[in-house]
C-alpha cells in the first residue's frame, strides 16, 4: 500500500507543493549580484510573501543562489557548500557571468559556464538582473518544482564522474573530501 505507485504520486504532489511554497535561499554572494538580493528580500519587492526566505547555513538551505562570476578559488568553496546541502536542493545561476562569463569572458581565473561544474536548475539572465527578474526566476523555479522537473541534484549524482572531472580540471589543489551520501 505504501509503495503503491498512485499513493507515491499523491505524496509527491503534497511534498512538491510544500517545497514550492517554502524556498530557503543560501545567497552565495560571489560577485556584484549580491547587491540585488537585499531589495528583493526587503519591503519593496518582499520575496517572503512567496515563501522565499534566507537560510543561515548550507544544511538548512534548499536553493543555492550563485550571484555572479565565480573565480576558480571561489568555485572550490561553492562546490563544498553545494555538497553540504540536503536533498532536494536546487541551484540558481544569477546574471550573465554564470551563463557565458559575461564581462569576464576572457578572464584567466573565472569559470565561464557554471553548468559544467554544478547542475543549474534556473538561470536568471541580465547584468545585473533587476529584483523583478529575480522574482521571475523564483517563479520559474517554483513551477519546475511543482512539476517535479527541478532534478539538478539527481543529475549531479548520476553524472558525478563528469562533474568531478570538470571540477578537478580547474581546481588544481584539490584537498577536499569526496562527495558521499
Amino acid at each position, binding site marked *: 500500500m505504501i509503495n503503491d505507485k498512485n499513493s507515491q504520486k499523491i505524496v509527491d504532489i*503534497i*511534498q512538491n507543493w*510544500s*517545497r514550492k*511554497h*517554502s524556498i530557503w535561499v543560501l545567497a552565495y554572494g560571489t560577485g556584484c549580484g549580491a547587491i540585488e538580493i537585499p531589495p528583493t528580500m*526587503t*519591503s519593496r519587492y*518582499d520575496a*517572503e*510573501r512567496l*515563501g522565499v526566505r*534566507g537560510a*543561515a*547555513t*548550507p*544544511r*538548512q*538551505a*534548499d536553493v543555492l543562489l550563485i550571484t555572479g562570476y565565480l573565480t576558480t578559488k571561489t568555485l572550490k568553496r561553492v562546490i563544498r557548500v553545494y555538497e553540504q*546541502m*540536503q*536533498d*532536494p536542493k536546487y541551484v540558481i545561476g544569477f546574471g550573465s557571468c554564470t551563463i557565458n562569463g559575461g564581462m569576464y569572458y576572457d578572464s584567466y581565473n573565472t569559470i565561464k559556464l557554471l553548468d559544467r561544474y554544478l547542475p543549474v536548475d534556473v538561470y536568471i539572465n541580465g547584468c545585473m538582473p533587476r529584483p523583478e527578474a529575480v522574482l521571475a526566476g523564483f517563479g520559474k523555479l517554483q513551477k519546475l518544482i511543482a512539476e517535479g522537473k527541478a532534478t539538478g541534484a539527481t543529475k549531479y549524482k548520476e553524472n558525478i564522474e563528469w562533474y568531478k572531472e570538470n571540477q578537478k580540471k580547474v581546481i588544481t589543489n584539490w584537498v577536499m573530501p569526496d562527495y558521499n*551520501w
Partner: protein
Amino acid sequence: MDSIWYKILGAIVTVVMAFIVGLTYMGLSRKITARVQNRKGPPFYQNFIDALKLASKTSAIHHGFLHHVGPAFMMITSIMSVMIVPILTGDQWFSNLNFKGDLIFLLYIMVFGPLGMALGAGQTGNPNSAIGVTRGLSQMVGFEIPWVMALVALMMQYHTTSIVDLINVQHQSGTWLMFSSPFAFIAAVLAMLGMFRYSPFDIVGAPTELASGPVSENGGKYLFTLMSSNSIFAFAKLTLYVDLFLGGASNIPVLLLKTFAIYLIPMLYGIVSPRYRTEQAIRYFWGWPLFFGILAILHATVF
C-alpha cells in the same frame, strides 16, 4: 473515564494542540513583523508549509551520537513542560499531570532541553554552534534570576509551590495575581523577553551574525524537530504565564486570547529593537528585572 488510554489520548490531544497553536502564533508573528515593516508578508500558515518541507527533506548528516540526540532532548523538554502546565482549569482532556507537577520541577525541566541541545551542538564541531551555546547559557544566567525571584515571591506570598493552587487562589480572591503581586509580574514579563529569544535578545540564533548558532549544523528533519519543539515550548510557557498571572482559562477561546496577548509583548518589543551584545543582554537582566524581582520578594514578605 479514568482508564489509561483516555489519559494517553488526552496527552496526544494536548501536544497536537500545542503544536498547532505554537506554529500559528509564530506564523502570525512573521505576518505582523512584515506588516510593521510595510511588507505584505507570508501567509499565517507559512510555518506549517515550512515544517512539512523540512520533514520531507533528507538528513544525511552525521556528527556523532549526541548530535542526533540533541533535538530529541529539546522535544522531551517541550512535551514534559506542556504535560505539567495546567492547560485548562477543570477539564478532563487537558488534565495531564498537572496535579502532581509543581513550579520547582518545572524550573528544572525548562533548562534541561537547552542543556541537552548544547551537548548536541558541541559535538557538531561548528564554531558558530560553540559560540551560540556559550551565549545561550550566559543569557540563561541573566534571565533565570529575575524569573526565579518572581516565582519565589509567589511561592512565599501564597505558601504553595503548586500551579493549580495558585490558580485557585486567584479564583477565590477574584483578582489576578498580575494585580495582587504586580512586581512579580513585571519581573517575570521582563525575564520572558529573554526566554522567547526575540530581538533584542536573539543573541543565540543571530542568523546574520552566528549563522543561526547552535542549530547551524541541523537541517531537514532535525530542524523540523527543533521547530515543532520550539512551538510546543512557546505554548507551554505562554500557558504558564496565563496560569500564574492571568487567572488561568476555563475554555480554549479564552486561553488563546490570553496567551496571544502575552505573546504580543516579546514579539512587538522585538520588532522595534535591534540586537544586544551578550554583555548588554546580561546587564539588562541584572538591572531593572532584578530590581523588580527584589521588590516582589519584599512585597511578598511584607504582605
